[in-house]
């Protein structure tokens, strides 16, 4: 009788304790890409020097923060990267930082795996020392092994961040800079 009661209680307990998830970005498995457009070129670059952390509270509230060194972006052209660093005044503002917050649907964090959840996070992009608030759509996949995979993209205005846009042959690059992220997060080690 007691054993049956214990079994019932255990069955009623969720698989995940529903506590706080403290997740860290796996830099080796994650990347952040940017794309800019000039009348003559479309340029893409990426950084694998992403540092980040996300906290999922028991009620599904999410807080995330990602930081990328400007000097880690590589567009495949050393000279262009150097010019990009000059335009972003890397010596004064060495990092691009994004903070985001939002809510997961109920039971998403402790639900079955794998599970993909679309989210729209309220975010703040700190680029060139200027913080701009915006919404960031994110596709979050809770993998069976415990890892969390977050992908998405958004556009930032270089003018809004007061970046003096670089030019080639006296034609400036376009204002919109597309940023795409592909982040793999794992439970932080204590």
């Amino acid at each position, binding site marked *: 009788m007691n054993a049956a009661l214990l079994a019932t209680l255990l069955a009623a307990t969720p698989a995940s304790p529903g506590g706080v998830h403290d997740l860290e970005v796996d830099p080796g498995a994650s990347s952040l890409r940017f794309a800019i457009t000039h009348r003559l070129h479309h340029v893409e670059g990426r950084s694998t020097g992403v540092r980040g*952390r996300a906290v999922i509270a028991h*009620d599904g509230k999410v807080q995330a923060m990602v930081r990328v060194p400007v000097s880690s972006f590589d567009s495949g052209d*050393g000279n262009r990267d150097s010019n990009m660093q000059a335009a972003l*005044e890397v*010596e004064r503002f060495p990092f691009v930082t994004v903070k985001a917050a939002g809510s997961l649907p109920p039971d998403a964090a402790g639900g079955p795996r794998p599970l993909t959840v679309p989210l729209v996070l309220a975010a703040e992009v700190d680029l060139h020392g200027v913080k701009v*608030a915006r919404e960031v759509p994110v596709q979050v996949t809770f993998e069976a092994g415990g890892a969390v995979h977050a992908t998405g993209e958004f556009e930032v205005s270089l003018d809004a961040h007061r970046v003096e846009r670089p030019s080639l042959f006296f034609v400036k690059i376009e204002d919109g800079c597309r940023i795409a992220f592909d982040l793999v997060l794992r439970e932080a080690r204590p």
Partner: protein
Amino acid sequence: MRLPSSLLLAALAALATPAPVHAGLLVEPLRPPLPADCPDPAPADLAPDPARVLVALASDPPAGDEEEKEKKAKPAPGDLDFDLLGAAETQEGPDPALMKRRRQMLTVHQGVGIALYSLQAATVVLGQLNYRDKFSTHMNTEKWRIPHKSFAYATTAAMVLNGALALAAPTPVKKPFRLDRVGVHKIAMFTAAAGIATEVGLGLYTHSREGYMDQQHLAKVHLAIGYATFAAMTVGVAALVL
């Protein structure tokens, strides 16, 4: 006289025990001490209003509310006033003055480069017209000689200036050489620079061979190197544009 010990104990207990505060003490009107000859005035009501006391007491949080207060001080989920990563490691960045100078010099380099490419194109066209006038039509009017020579010197001057700008531009961000767009641009422009240097010497020598049998042959080589130089320059420009 000896007091019974039980009575002594009772007296000590009475002294040690604080007198209970009468609940109605504050409600009693307080009277200021007055001299004995003073007529008894109307009693001044200095007692606090019990309702106000209640309000004042209600505004003071009980000890248990401190925890609640701390919770409210933390940013609510959804608020972006948080820092999950802590202070960033400080990185020694490149010298901003050098970065600015590099940008200025390379902007001028682009302008001079456009002029250089145009001058080289014009020099090649004028060189072709000069060759045709001298060796194809045999009219030998020399009407293209001075324009070709002028443009050739202007091209050389532009090449020297632009090469100096590129080489003298500081590189505060050190990077290994890669065969990327700028790598191709550099190789092509060094080739073009060598071509221009050769053209100056060969052009002067060809002109000095006036009346000799080999002048046409030298002029032909000079023309071919001119086209090759223009082609190298086109590759250099295309590497940046395409």
